[in-house]
């Protein structure tokens, strides 16, 4: 049981990082990103290839994962910054699918649907599996802590305030002389970097990545995490990620005690409950469990 809880906390940490990354793009800059799993995947593949094939040290692989994702995020923002949110949702969703297809088909680079196995992990093999788990638990949550402090500071910096202004009303921000596009690109790149970094950590924890791991389902989980915690608030992203893992795992135990349904029906109930809880959260607590304190009054009234 201990090992299980530790492992799930590692997952929660990775999800928390992803939710933090999404929060920069969506929460601060107001650009929805339903392709976040694509940036996560880019980071994972970048570090996997560099540390396994070119024997880069792991921290450099992680940095590279973040950098590659940031680059892709910046480019994406450049293309889509002019678009309204609804277009953005579709474009980003499509982007993640393209990343998955490229990873499946460009066998020379990514090893295709076989995936990449044997990705090194810190001290993996030299310590017991449970010790490895604990090491990673520390690592992931340290990363969450650092990201949280950094992003919270950014969020309250002049840069963060401009982003909020852009989120609330782009035209007003532009009239005030702010280069809106440049702010959006930087916000998107920053958020993508955090997502890529999360992907990089994930690759080294699992030791294996494959295109199927970067399916839209994970995007839904992270959006759920951020919505549950409260879009815009950095603390909310972390609380939300913990809640999502609790929900994902708790439904396993719940499903076991439901009598009179087949295993497929249990599986359907599990996925259904997760979807339903997102809808209910949006309905009854749209501001999340930890609302953003800086949210403007005008927004609340509208």
């Amino acid at each position: 049981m201990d090992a299980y809880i530790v492992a799930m906390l590692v997952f929660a940490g990775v999800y928390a990082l992803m939710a933090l990354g999404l929060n920069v793009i969506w929460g601060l800059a107001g650009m929805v990103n339903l392709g976040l799993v694509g940036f996560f995947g880019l980071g994972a593949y970048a570090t996997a290839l560099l540390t396994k094939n070119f024997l880069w040290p792991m921290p450099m692989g992680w940095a590279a994962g973040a950098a590659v994702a940031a680059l892709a995020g910046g480019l994406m923002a450049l293309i889509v910054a002019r678009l309204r949110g609804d277009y953005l949702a579709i474009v980003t969703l499509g982007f993640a699918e393209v990343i998955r297809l490229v990873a499946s088909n460009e066998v020379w680079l990514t090893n295709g649907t076989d995936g990449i196995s044997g990705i090194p992990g810190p001290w993996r093999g030299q310590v017991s599996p449970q010790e490895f788990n604990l090491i990673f638990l520390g690592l992931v949550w340290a990363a969450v802590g650092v990201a949280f402090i950094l992003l919270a500071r950014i969020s309250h910096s002049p840069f963060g305030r401009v982003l909020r202004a852009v989120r609330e009303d782009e035209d007003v921000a532009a009239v005030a002389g702010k280069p809106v596009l440049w702010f959006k690109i930087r916000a998107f790149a920053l958020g993508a970097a955090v997502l890529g970094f999360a992907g990089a950590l994930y690759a080294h924890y699992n030791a294996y990545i494959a295109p199927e791991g970067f399916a839209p389902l994970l995007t839904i989980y992270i959006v759920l995490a951020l919505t549950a915690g409260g879009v815009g608030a950095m603390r909310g992203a972390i609380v939300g990620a913990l809640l999502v893992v609790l929900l994902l795992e708790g439904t396993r135990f719940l499903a076991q005690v439901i009598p009179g349904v087949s295993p497929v029906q249990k599986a359907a109930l599990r996925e259904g409950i997760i979807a339903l809880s997102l809808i209910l959260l949006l309905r009854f607590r749209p501001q999340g469990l930890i609302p953003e304190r800086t949210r403007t009054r005008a927004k609340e009234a509208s």
Partner: protein
Amino acid sequence: MTQFRMGRRAALFGAATLPLFAVGGRAFGQGAPVVLGALPPLTGAGGPYGPAMLRAIQGVVEEANAAGGIRGRQIRVVAEDDQTNPDAGVRGTRKLIDVDRVSAVLGTWASAVTTAVAPLCWENRVPLFTVSGADSITQLPHQGYIFRTQPNSQLQIRTGTDWLLAKGARRVFHLAAQSPFAQSSQEVMTQRMRAAGGQVTGFIVYERDKTNFRSEIDQVMRSRSDTIMLNGYLPDTTILLRELFRAGFDGRKFTFAYAAPASVFQSLPNEVTNGLITFQPSPDVDSGAFKRLQSRFGNTEVDPYSAQTHDHAALAILAAAQTGDASGTAIRDNVRKISQGGGEKVDNVTDGLRAIAAGRAINFEGASGPVDFEPSGDISGTKFRFEQAENGRYKVLEIA
């Protein structure tokens, strides 16, 4: 009689477990049930297969429990849905291993899920029985903890190609879903065909999730092939078969049995499926295993994956019964003792448990073949059954 057997069982139990307590294996109590974990795909792309795979496992476990369980211990199955997703698979496996303390994980389907959960299994000394086809799986450093009942894809495609050549196929079109073995299958096929004076007339890797493949079929028709090799899965193969019929393809249609299990007759009319040839690993046609399999399953469908998960459960149970120890390592070390060698041939878990209780050596022959394992964890010496669809049924052509 019963009492006598009980006595023997108890004696064996004592003898077998004493040394295990000494080396500190997982504690073995008479009352505690043995837990087997199942990780089939119940949602996602593997959804059409997972439910039947799980039913097969549960069927064997019920049968074993009715036969007295593993030396008196009942067996329990805990199933988790892998959602055909490595991430969900890893979380599910964590729960099976750390919370349910399963003795083995059975029935992983997608190669990506199997590869993702494999390190968890071997690090925690839990054997993993899988039906995944990617050749790379048994090349992992798994210390003997992986058992794969699906013949590796190279062997399958070699067997299939050679059989087609023997039947006179010279121009074969290869239509493959994007999978870990699409490319390697193509290489093996090309080399085999060329050596025998034939050729692979075309090779298309398609996107599995599409709902139409018209332009792909146009290419097949243009190639004037005498045979088409459909290297995909059930949803896409169903569409392709329909399109081939519509286009009037009159050559040989050949596919893996898992891509067109008997359930294909429910979603396609007979004129579309007639003539389709499938192949799958199989027990020998003369063996009792095959005859029993036929009579037991009768008209109800048994697809190759459920046949294999049936064998996964039987292997794990018999291996645990062999030593009287249900730890993962004990199962790993005893699978080969009960599945190969010169022992008495048994083809079901009831007979197997009875023979082990009587102290006889056994050689389990499963529903998916003789299930003998190489050191790598791949199966060896399996035969293949070729069947042809005829008016909504599969007829056995031959076992080779």
